[in-house]
């Protein structure tokens, strides 16, 4: 607009003044946009050209994903992703079953089963499939992942379709050689894509604040113009005859119409002062951010993950500085904090703890307490396999026979090997066998048994066959077949699982594993020692972040068993309340148990997670875990990651209470919701009260644990405020069993309710909504599954890289951009104010002080580069110090560097400096200036003033720098030099073009006088004097934290060499260890025992919420699978 104004005659400047910088700015931002689009385009191409097999005639032909059309029949092989939403027709598995992993969609780790309609089972092979003709009627594309309604019409037969036959894009195929499916929805119509809302374009908070600053500047501009306009209306007068204000003068100077004069002058002044609005600011910021992303974040070796060959990736360059102000992190669990890898880690057998491994959390604790852990070097023979990370010479390789009570070891191992629902697959040798378990925990336990010498290799519908070593004597191997009589399955109320089995010698044993509290209730009264010791171990394991299970057995007499079995069979065949009756029956036999010991499984955390979380929380960042997992698992992980420890008070709001369960059993939805609502409201109130009390009276740290069902009600507008208040008081929050939508809701609750900056990190499709809802979304890259990454703003390979991303890159970006913005503000204000002061001396006519070209090149050449260099290279403390003193990050959270006070200080000095520039140069120029007695004109003075401005403004930048590289020197001296070169040429030549030769020769005239040199020395120094004094006093009396840190480490040379670089460890310095120790408070006795167990195939929580799709029971899964495997074995 200003450019247009400048082409009108009322403008004081020629159009070129405004058009040149504007077009430069536009050009640069165009190039940048084009570049980013190009990259996005290439990414899309990569995904769209993934190949897939499509049925063409009677053959499979490979085409790329993008060519898929609705109605195509395609084949998906094991471990591949489904390219579209498919109707499941047939699978290589018998009875039309396939297993899919939905971790990408909902984060659940157990495999799901899909079953094709019987009618279509045959279409596995192309010859058959090509015969398939049918019609699918289905719902419109929608975003509900757990519902599907439709019909398949084959040969005039209408078959209803359920979610059970639908394979969603984003899932992958497991344990199935290949499946055949028909494409229902493709591309944007797939349910996953419908779920990912159109990516909201995110702008950083800083930029939004910047907008406010710009508005303020506009206000200032208007105010200045108003003053000028009023002045001009008052000033204009015919008495100044030399202005030629005759009768027919143009409106702008017509003294007989002062009002019009004012209005027109207003416009004149707007164009004149338009330099106050830093148009090149936005483009500079974009350039800086772009380079920060492309060169610094993407190429940071500290964030390069060698194992997956994944560097960090900044997918948008808008949010760099937002990373420096994050206060809340919402993290997904599986795949983000944990590796989704369960490892048998420790055990306690007969009251003795075995296992030499040390968990990350133990390591951290030890470091905090300052004691050294004598990490035992693992023996060379150590076996390592997925799911097994255990070594103890006392029991490995049959050594357990030499322990005090070898019998109990046998029970322990047999319990592990027998009491489960795992299916062996593949070759029946210990090396090649693959255990298919619905939960990785179970697989880990069975694998452990294998390594202990009790190799489970075959399951038939009634027996489990083990290959036992060292039982009779060392080195002896024998195959034993145990008959499994009953299986009392796991569910979340029972929290235990038992099998009754018959030894070949007729011994009847019940093996039971389950949560410690459940098992302890059912133990026989004997052997208190073992109980006590085991409990101690459980607590130890629990506080080390391990998932524990108690193992127990009971010998049964034939009579007892027969009696009980009758009741069991009855219960099993009853039609009403079967579940409840089965539970009751189970209760009757699961008693008088004898404790064997306990297992401890490590839910393997991603590398460096506890340390990273600890560092981040010291940086003032609060971390919330939002997971679809069960409460126990979630709490366990929270322990393992140091989010919750035993010093904290846990506030738990759960729907797993008796009242709610009772209501649910009645099954009246209205009643259920009322009961839950009441209980949530009550719990919230109670917790809030406790929180207030504990926090303010005892200063205790709080942790809130809430589950999805309660969250659904707590997010209700009436409770939302309470929830927010409560959760903001807690140092960590764990939300379990939450749906993707709830994740997003919680995120926006904090984002909007608390107005804090939030970051979400996740790896799966279930995190997409959360990633998009937060200010900053971070995706975990490098694993399969791209949805989270595609929705994210930044992608990193490991959770621990957050430390670098936030504390180093985020913090630097924030500080740099704050400096860039405030500096831009300052330099434009200073420049414009000199112009403003001049207006007072020109009869408010709007005469420009500077030449057009000075003005237009001021922002784009003479002061452009150094500030970009500042935005790229300024470094207050080095990367390692930033991580060593995470507290420095708090300055970003508090927005210390871009408060109005900071802007005010800059504005004040801009004001001061502009006065110096204007008055010093003009006052000093009144008389003749060299012995020739000749006098300067307007343009000489303005060239002088401009020279001073350029030099001062560039030097001021140097004062704002914390580290000065040769680029700084280069750009600053370059800018000043550019000005001189420019003025030498510009004022040295005459052009034939129509140009006012105002500044012709001015610089040479100036340089022939001492005045020039004296002023050039005086003015910049006086102008910077104020800033210097302020900075000195500020550091002296009110130092920022970073300044202290700089001083502490002032003598250290920041020489991270390449070698050092590669082994950046998490080693603590003695200083840090001490500060840990200071933070250490007297600890309560540990109470957490760490039970957590993924029940095999617990109902998909969301599905049951939707009330449509009830998946099969886990046991059915195992049973069918076992049938299958037995079939296969028999075939052999």
């Amino acid at each position: 607009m200003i450019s247009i104004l400048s082409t009108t005659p009322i403008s004081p400047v020629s159009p070129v003044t405004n058009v040149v910088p504007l077009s430069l700015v536009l050009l640069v931002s165009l190039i940048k946009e084009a570049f980013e689009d190009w990259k996005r385009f290439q990414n899309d191409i990569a995904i769209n050209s993934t190949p897939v097999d499509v049925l063409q005639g009677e053959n499979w032909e490979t085409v790329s994903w993008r060519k898929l059309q609705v109605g195509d029949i395609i084949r998906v092989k094991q471990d591949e992703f489904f390219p579209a939403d498919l109707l499941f027709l047939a699978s290589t598995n018998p009875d039309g079953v396939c297993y899919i992993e939905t971790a990408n969609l909902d984060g659940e780790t157990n495999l799901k089963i899909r079953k094709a309609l019987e009618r279509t089972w045959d279409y596995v092979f192309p010859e058959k499939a090509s015969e398939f003709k049918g019609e699918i009627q289905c719902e419109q594309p929608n975003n509900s992942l757990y519902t599907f309604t439709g019909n398949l019409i084959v040969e005039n037969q209408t078959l209803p379709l359920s979610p059970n036959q639908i394979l969603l894009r984003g899932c992958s195929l497991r344990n199935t050689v290949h499946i055949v499916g028909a494409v229902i929805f493709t591309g944007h119509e797939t349910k996953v894509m419908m779920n990912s809302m159109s990516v909201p374009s995110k702008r950083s908070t800083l930029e939004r604040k910047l907008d406010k600053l710009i508005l303020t500047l506009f206000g200032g501009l208007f105010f200045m113009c108003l003053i000028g306009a009023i002045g001009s209306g008052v000033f204009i007068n015919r008495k100044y005859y030399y202005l030629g204000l005759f009768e027919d003068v143009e409106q702008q100077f017509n003294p007989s119409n002062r009002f019009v004069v004012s209005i027109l002058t207003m416009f004149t002044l707007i164009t004149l002062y338009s330099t106050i609005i830093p148009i090149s600011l936005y483009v500079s910021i974009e350039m800086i951010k772009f380079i920060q992303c492309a060169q610094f974040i993407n190429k940071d070796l500290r964030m390069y993950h060698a194992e997956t060959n994944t560097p960090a990736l900044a997918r948008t360059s808008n949010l760099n500085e937002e990373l420096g102000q994050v206060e809340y992190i919402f993290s997904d669990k599986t795949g983000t904090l944990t590796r989704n890898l369960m490892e048998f880690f420790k055990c306690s057998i007969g009251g003795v703890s075995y296992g030499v491994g040390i968990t990350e959390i133990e390591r951290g604790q030890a470091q905090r307490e300052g004691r050294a852990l004598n990490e035992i070097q693992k023996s060379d023979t150590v076996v390592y396999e997925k799911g097994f990370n255990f070594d103890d010479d006392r029991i490995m390789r049959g050594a357990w026979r030499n322990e005090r009570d070898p019998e109990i070891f046998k029970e322990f191992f047999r319990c592990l090997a027998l009491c489960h629902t795992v299916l062996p697959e593949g070759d029946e040798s210990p090396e090649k066998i693959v255990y298919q378990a619905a939960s990785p925990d179970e697989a880990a336990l069975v694998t452990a048994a294998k390594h202990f010498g009790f190799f489970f290799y075959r399951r038939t519908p009634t027996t489990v066959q083990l290959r036992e070593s060292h039982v009779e004597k060392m080195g002896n191997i024998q195959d034993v077949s145990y008959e499994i009589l009953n299986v009392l399955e796991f569910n979340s109320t029972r929290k235990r699982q038992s099998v009754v089995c018959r030894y070949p010698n007729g011994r009847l044993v019940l093996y039971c594993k389950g949560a410690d509290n459940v098992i302890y209730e059912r133990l026989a009264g004997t052997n208190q020692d073992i109980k006590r010791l085991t409990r101690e171990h459980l607590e130890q394991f629990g506080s080390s972040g391990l998932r524990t299970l108690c193992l127990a057995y009971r010998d049964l007499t034939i009579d007892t068993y027969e009696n009980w079995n009758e009741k069991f069979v009855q219960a099993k065949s009853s039609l009403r309340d079967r579940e409840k009756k089965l539970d009751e029956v189970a209760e009757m036999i699961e008693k008088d148990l004898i404790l064997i010991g306990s297992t401890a499984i490590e839910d393997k955390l991603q590398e460096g997670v506890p340390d990273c979380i600890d560092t981040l929380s010291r940086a003032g960042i609060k971390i919330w875990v939002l997971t679809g997992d069960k409460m126990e698992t979630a709490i366990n992980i929270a322990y393992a990651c140091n989010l919750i420890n035993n010093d904290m008070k846990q506030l738990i709001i759960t729907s797993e209470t008796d009242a709610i369960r009772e209501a649910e059993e009645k099954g009246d939805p209205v009643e259920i919701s009322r009961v839950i609502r009441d209980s949530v409201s009550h719990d919230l109130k109670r917790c809030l009260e406790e929180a207030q009390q504990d926090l303010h009276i005892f200063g205790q740290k709080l942790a809130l644990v809430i589950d999805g069902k309660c969250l659904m009600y707590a997010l209700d507008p009436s409770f939302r405020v309470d929830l927010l208040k409560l959760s903001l008081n807690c140092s960590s929050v764990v939300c379990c069993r939450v749906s993707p939508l709830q994740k997003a809701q919680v995120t926006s609750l904090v984002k909007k309710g608390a107005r804090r900056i939030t970051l979400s990190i996740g790896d799966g499709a279930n995190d997409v909504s959360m990633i998009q809802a937060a200010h900053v979304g971070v995706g975990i890259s490098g694993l399969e599954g791209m949805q989270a990454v595609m929705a994210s703003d930044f992608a990193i390979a490991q959770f621990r890289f957050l430390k670098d991303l936030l504390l180093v890159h985020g913090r630097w970006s924030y500080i740099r951009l704050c400096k860039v913005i405030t500096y831009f503000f300052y330099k434009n204000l200073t420049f414009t104010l000199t112009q403003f002061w001049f207006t007072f001396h020109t009869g408010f006519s709007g005469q420009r002080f500077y030449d057009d070209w000075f003005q237009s090149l001021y922002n784009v050449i003479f002061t452009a580069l150094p500030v970009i260099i500042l935005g790229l290279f300024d470094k207050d403390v080095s990367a390692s110090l930033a991580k060593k003193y995470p507290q420095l990050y708090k300055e970003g959270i508090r927005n210390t560097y871009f408060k109005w006070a900071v802007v005010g200080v800059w504005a004040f000095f801009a004001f001061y400096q502009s006065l110096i520039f204007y008055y010093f140069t003009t006052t000093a120029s009144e008389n003749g200036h060299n012995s020739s007695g000749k006098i300067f004109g307007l343009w000489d003075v303005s060239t002088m003033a401009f020279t001073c401005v350029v030099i001062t403004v560039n030097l001021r930048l140097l004062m704002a720098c914390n580290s000065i590289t040769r680029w700084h020197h280069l750009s600053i001296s370059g800018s000043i030099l550019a000005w001189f070169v420019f003025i030498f040429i510009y004022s040295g030549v005459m052009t034939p073009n129509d140009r006012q030769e105002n500044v012709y020769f001015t610089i040479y005239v100036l340089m022939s006088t001492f005045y020039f040199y004296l002023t050039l020395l005086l003015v910049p120094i006086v102008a910077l004097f104020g800033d210097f004094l302020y900075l000195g006093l500020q550091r002296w009396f009110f130092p920022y934290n970073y300044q202290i840190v700089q001083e502490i480490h002032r003598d250290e040379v920041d020489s991270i060499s390449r070698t050092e670089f590669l082994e950046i460890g998490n080693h603590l310095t003695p200083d840090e260890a001490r500060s840990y120790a200071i933070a250490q408070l007297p600890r309560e006795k540990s109470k957490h025992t760490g039970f957590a167990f993924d029940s095999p195939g617990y109902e998909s929580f969301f599905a049951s919420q939707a009330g449509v799709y009830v998946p099969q029971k886990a046991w059915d899964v195992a049973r069918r699978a076992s049938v299958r495997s037995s079939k296969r074995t028999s075939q052999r």
Partner: protein
Amino acid sequence: MSPQADPAPEGDAGVVERRKKSKKPKYSRFTQQELPACKPLLTPTIVISTFSLIGILFIPIGLTSLSASDIVVEIVYRYDTECIPQQSQNDKLAFIQSSETNKICSTTLTVPKNMKAPVYIYYELDNFYQNHRRYVKSRNDKQLRSKAYEQETTNCAPEATTANGSPIVPCGLIAWSLFNDTYSFAIQNKVIEVNKKNIAWQSDKNNKFGSDVYPKNFQQGGLIGGAKLNESIPLSEQEDLIVWMRTAALPQFRKLYGRIETDLAANEQISVTIENNYNTYSFEGEKKLVLSTTSWIGGKNDFLGVAYLAVGSLCLFLALAFIVLYLLKPRTLGDPSYLSWNKNPDGHQ
């Protein structure tokens, strides 16, 4: 550890393809942000020494400038009121605008100190907005420069053309309002030569005002703004015009009128004859006659010297103050107890 934990998705051919080449970023000091840098810390020592340094540097410069300015002898005489006869004091405007009145006035100035030649003669105007936007742009540099552009009168309105449309050379308000008071000096009735050559900057004379451009139609209109020009002298020789056309920055300005090339002794009486033609009365502007010698620093100008002295002494004072402060309440560098989280474990909001 984790490779076996996450089996590579073989199906994702693109990924496999890309995995073959390492995506490990190359090390460079630039991308790792480890460029060698000096890290200036504004420590008390640096603050104190900077202030002292500025003080030590500036005070001598200030003193030198002041002494240079002190050598300059300056006589300022305001004549706009005094050159109006008593009877016209109430209506100065009528007096100055009338072509009948006798505008010659005389006065005597006393030389306060020896004034070594050359003595520069300036006129000083006040409340004259030579920097008014309408005024500044009311000229045409092309026309001034070359005869070829004689017709070029853009921007010159309302003094662009005569009533019949032929261009005015030089056109525009600046030229039109050329100052036309004249001064002549005599000591004891002996006329002192006033050298009016070489009073404009050489660059203006040589390049901005053409030697082939002669005044034309100048001051022919109804209203006479100021001086007339001799139409037989090219613009490049009309130095009064050239001086006048280098517009001043501020509404109060001096312009060089000429030089006296004889020494003036102290207490000599100079009789000045002023032809008071120029109208500053309509806008209540002052008119002054200034006689001044120069030194290397130029004319009488205490400002720079005083500024240097003031800043220099302020810096010295501050340096002292900081030293005292430093002794009384030392600020240890890098004391961890200054860290906010050490001061107040909860952090301050």
